[in-house]
């Protein structure tokens, strides 16, 4: 197991270095003068320009610049936002909990619905339920989620008036963020109604963001279930006279879950992509919206830092999934 862990971590390092190269190169690839891009001012005087060039280290050899960039990254220094002048890291981690809260809720929603539905569809293969669920899953998989979000707003906020259109909390409530997670903060604050308001703001974004993972998980669970149900040990379990429920829940499910867990892990990237769209539709103050806003404001240090942090998060989560996969599936761990 130790060797397995070390190999996997070893594989991650070159990818991380590659990502830093990419973000380092990015700001130099953008057309225009890098000093003006970094400082966010146009028409600098020649002296001021040279001064900034030196200050930003852009007059040194590329390799030295990259070394300094890496040094900064390893110390948690990703530069300052052009617009707010605050450190990019601070900006990112102020907004990160909002995205995490939304993503976690979306993933829980996708797993809670997708897993049982996939299992039943697999067990009752060819039934009306199976066909219906798989058609819905394919539709969900093909869904332009930004449009899906607008439709839900039309129906639930416009026609029924059940849910708010945007934001994380009704303006009538205010409290200092303690954890950054609105559900927890509103509970800690104890103001009646605050928690309910937080939940009602969260429902639609969760459904929108969870739709594609839900479809993927349901499809994957079904096909994993079908594969496992054809195995010899399932036949053995049935032959022993175990109840069908026990065969499915105890014998088949545990093995069917192995590929499903990988797929759930892979959804992290999908969730980040989806968060960009979902947060834009619902004006959710998370890093997806922040990144898009930063791009349209040409706040390149923020874009650069944000991309690096998101990529790092995705790499780390995928690494964790890989390790868990090795833990629950000895066949992977011992393969050379």
């Amino acid at each position, binding site marked *: 197991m130790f060797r397995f862990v070390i190999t996997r971590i070893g594989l991650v390092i*070159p*990818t991380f270095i*590659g990502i830093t190269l990419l973000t380092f190169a990015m700001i130099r690839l953008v057309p225009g003068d890098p000093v003006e891009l970094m400082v966010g001012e146009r028409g600098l005087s020649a002296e001021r320009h040279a001064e900034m060039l030196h200050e930003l280290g852009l007059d040194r050899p590329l390799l030295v610049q990259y070394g300094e960039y890496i040094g900064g990254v390893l110390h948690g220094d990703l530069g300052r936002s052009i617009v707010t002048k605050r450190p990019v890291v601070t900006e990112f981690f102020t907004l990160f909990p909002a995205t995490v809260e939304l993503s976690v809720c979306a993933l829980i929603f996708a797993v809670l619905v997708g897993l049982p539905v996939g299992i039943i569809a697999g067990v009752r293969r060819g039934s009306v339920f199976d066909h219906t669920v798989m058609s819905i899953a394919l539709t969900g998989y*093909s869904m332009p989620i930004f449009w899906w979000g607008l439709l839900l707003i*039309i129906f639930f906020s416009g026609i029924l008036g059940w849910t708010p259109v945007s934001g994380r909390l009704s303006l009538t409530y205010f409290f200092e963020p303690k954890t950054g997670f609105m559900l927890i903060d509103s509970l800690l604050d104890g103001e009646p109604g605050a928690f309910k308001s937080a939940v009602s703001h969260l429902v639609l974004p969760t459904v929108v963001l969870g739709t594609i993972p839900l479809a993927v998980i349901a499809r994957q669970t079904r096909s994993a279930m079908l594969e496992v149900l*054809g195995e010899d040990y399932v036949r053995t379990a049935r032959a022993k006279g175990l109840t069908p429920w026990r065969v499915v829940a105890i014998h088949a499910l545990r093995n069917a879950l192995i590929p499903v867990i990988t797929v759930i892990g892979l959804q992290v*990237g999908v969730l*980040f*992509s989806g968060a960009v769209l979902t947060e834009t539709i619902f004006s959710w103050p998370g890093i997806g919206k922040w990144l898009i806003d930063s791009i349209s404001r040409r706040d390149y240090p923020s874009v650069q830092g944000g991309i690096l942090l998101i*990529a790092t998060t995705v790499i780390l989560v995928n690494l964790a999934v890989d390790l868990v996969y090795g833990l629950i599936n000895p066949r992977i761990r011992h393969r050379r």
Partner: protein
Amino acid sequence: MTASAEAVKAPVARPSPLADFWHSFSENRGAVVGLFIFLLVCIVALTANWIAPHLPDEQYRDHLLAPPFWQAGGSLAFPLGTDAVGRDILARIMFGARYSLAIGLIVVTLSLTVGIALGLIAAYFRGATEIAIMRLMDILLALPSLLLAVVIVAILGPGLFNAMLAISVVYLPHLVRLARASAIIELSKDYVTASRVCGAGALRLMVIAVLPNCMAPLIVQATLSFSNAILDAAALGFLGMGAQPPTPEWGTMLAEAREFVLRAWWVVTFPGVAILVTVLALNIMGDGLRDALDPKLRRQ
């Protein structure tokens, strides 16, 4: 030759590969429906000039935000209603089909060509070249797909062409991996050795001998990339980073319609339906193609 001998001989004749493919493809009824819908979208795109009721950017100032014909205040002159500046939505969706199909086609062609080339190069040369290519693909894979596209557009600047370029880059890793993996398997087979013995050069060996045998999974992946490209281009258009207004691209139409979401449902609904139907048809077709082309990948 006697009649009976002929009767015995007749069934031995193998069906043409195309007929064989159609036979297994048409077994999947959903896939045929998908193909039918996709062809319909193609026809609409090609004939939009003649069948669209209006020009896509003609503004009818007396009919701002007119509802579809079945609602009070709607008229058959604008079957699906008009948008905020009085443009006919049906016409815009019909012309929009051109953009979506062109996007799919260009993205798939670009990423398939480059992806196959890189995959074959990695499989042929192995060693440092392979490591360099595959590591680069790993880096691209580490970034969430839409985010990578957004970053590339941020570098290149917004616009339809740059968006297509960005999406092509995003789809590269999967195609490179597929091409490399199948090429490596093929390279160890006897016919490749035979071709080498006959003196085939690298280019001939890889393109004429190996490539045709690697195509099945690549075609399946290309179909799926086609539908994903339409979705991602619409998403970029929606974020303001793809096609720019007043282009009647479906995602861009949705972005323009966003502020009317609670006032005029039709402005928001129909472009999205167009995206969903096209993408869904392509995905169903992709499932059928996979079953027909690649028995190894056949669904359980």
